[in-house]
């Protein structure tokens, strides 16, 4: 018989890892709830159409698809933000904005061949703040992300903020249409210069555009980055983006997080629905970002309820990798009760009273002395058996 295998890029979490993950989820949930966010659990299967077009669209090849019995195409939830926008626009109409919503759950993707973190199934924990366009709400999202990273146990963590309008402005100023600009954006995100050169080789603006795009990766750091960036262009959209970013940056600093926030204008990430500030969370112990988010004011109008919105999602598998795994097992049993030779009613009630006192209690139905000793050394070294009188 061949050993049964899992499909590629998914994994089982065994007891210790599972316990770590559940504990982390609890920490994050409490964090979100304490800021007034209320949790929802969206459906895991949705119609393909919801995710195939429009602002929050995912590429067809990135989604995991199946069919229902009528032949309609379904997808395994590729992200939570679109689902929550759909819910807010169709099911929470009586709720008075702003809405604060959070979630923790699995999302699915068909990972690209060449990415450091290949996950077909991953756990996201995140928040969405809907119906508020004040920069203070951007700052709140960033502050909550910072608090979540801190309380999750990260020591060396940082949030970097950027502004998509700076990039969009540069593209407009260069006279690129939105389709070409979107291509350039995704290539800049990948730092794929071949593709940029191939794409722009036909347009007359090549040199000016390319040279600015090449500046972007170095436009990161403290507040001085904004002044440097302002020298690159005098296009109004770019300058207002820089002002917006300065406001948010100053607010987060004034709340006591100056050490953990920086600016990066070279950040142009994600699925096209961002309309303002964007941010991502990094830790020195992981080679890739573990949190990302931003403002997406256009998405909800697609579902018929125009509302400004800001939010973020953390990847829990990345977060767990960045945190040092404790050497000791997180799963433990306090008391073992020898229950092999006794009536179950007696051992069970003894166990129940210990459980009521907060102990974890395991009943041992084995009767053979030697096997009991083996069990004890294999699974619970140092634990003492208890017998019921």
């Amino acid at each position, binding site marked *: 018989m061949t050993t049964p295998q899992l499909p590629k890029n998914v994994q089982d979490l065994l007891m210790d890892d599972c316990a770590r993950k559940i504990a982390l989820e609890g920490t994050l949930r409490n964090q979100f709830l304490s800021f007034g966010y209320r949790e929802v659990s969206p459906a895991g299967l949705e119609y393909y159409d919801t995710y195939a077009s429009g602002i929050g669209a995912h590429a067809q090849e990135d989604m995991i698809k199946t069919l229902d019995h009528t032949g309609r195409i379904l997808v395994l939830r590729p992200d939570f933000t679109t689902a929550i926008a759909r819910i807010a626009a169709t099911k929470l109409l009586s709720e008075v904005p702003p809405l604060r919503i959070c979630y923790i759950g699995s999302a699915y993707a068909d990972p690209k061949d060449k990415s450091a973190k290949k996950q077909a199934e991953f756990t996201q924990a995140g928040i969405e703040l809907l119906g508020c366009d004040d920069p203070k709400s951007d700052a709140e999202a960033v502050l909550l992300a910072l608090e979540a990273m801190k309380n999750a146990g990260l020591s060396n963590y940082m949030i970097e903020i950027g502004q998509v309008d700076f990039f969009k402005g540069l593209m407009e100023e260069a006279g690129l249409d939105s389709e070409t600009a979107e291509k350039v954006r995704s290539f800049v995100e990948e730092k794929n210069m071949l593709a940029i050169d191939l794409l722009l080789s036909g347009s007359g603006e090549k040199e000016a555009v390319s040279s600015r795009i090449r500046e972007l990766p170095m436009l990161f750091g403290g507040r001085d980055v904004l002044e440097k960036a302002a020298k690159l262009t005098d296009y109004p959209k770019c300058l207002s983006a820089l002002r917006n970013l300065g406001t948010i940056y100053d607010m987060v600093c004034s709340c006591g997080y100056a050490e953990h926030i920086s600016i990066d204008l070279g950040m142009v990430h994600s699925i096209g629905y961002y309309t303002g500030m964007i941010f991502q969370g*990094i830790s020195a112990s992981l*080679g*890739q*970002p573990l949190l990302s988010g931003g403002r997406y004011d256009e998405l909800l109008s697609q579902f018929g309820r125009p509302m400004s919105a800001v939010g973020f999602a953390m990847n829990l598998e990345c977060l767990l990798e960045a945190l040092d795994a404790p050497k000791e097992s997180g799963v433990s049993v306090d008391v073992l009760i020898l229950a092999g030779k006794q009536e179950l009613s007696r051992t069970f009630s003894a166990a129940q009273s210990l459980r009521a006192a907060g102990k974890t209690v395991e009943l041992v139905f084995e009767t053979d002395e030697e096997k009991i000793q083996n069990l004890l050394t294999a699974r619970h070294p140092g634990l003492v058996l208890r017998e019921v009188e």
Partner: protein
Amino acid sequence: MEPITIAMAKGRLADETLTLLENMGVDVSALKEKSRKLVFYSGDHSYRFIMVKPSDVPTYVDHGVADVGIVGKDTLMEENRPLYEMLDLGFGTCRICIAGYAEKEPLKNAHIRVATKYTGIASQVFSTRGSSIEIIKLNGSVELGPVIGLSDVILDIVESGATLHANGLSILEEICTCSARLVVNRVSLKTKESQIRPLIEGLKEQIEKRSNDHD
């Protein structure tokens, strides 16, 4: 302070890079001795060097186990990973070309068979064109493809063009020019900025100095 880790492939790119670092005042003597070790430290332990295969350099940097990598642009294009490409080191120059028998005009075929070891670049280059293609992955002596009838064209790096010429092939199209690049992990650039920025600035200075000397 923790050293920053630089991934590079043994050979010319590494030798040239070490020369630049030496001119910057970095003690790289440990790397000049003949050794089968794969990990080396600079004299003051501010840099750690790991020696890997060229095509693995982007992998190490993407995963963040190396902060910085020195690698040819051709390899970067082929691997196509999300890295920051921060510096053109100016050496290791070559061209990526499509070559074949010019008189057969193979690029006008409706279906083109392409022999190459750069399968990623080939599919990217041809994806924007009308012809459909069949990519035939070869690991060496790619020029044999058209000669022996395995393929219509080849896509490969060309330095002098002597091998092409000796086999009766010519360059049909030049895709781009490649040289050695310094790439940086996306997170390391931020978390180790105080070490990586001076490295980049220092190397940049050396490269400019070198090109001025040539003038």
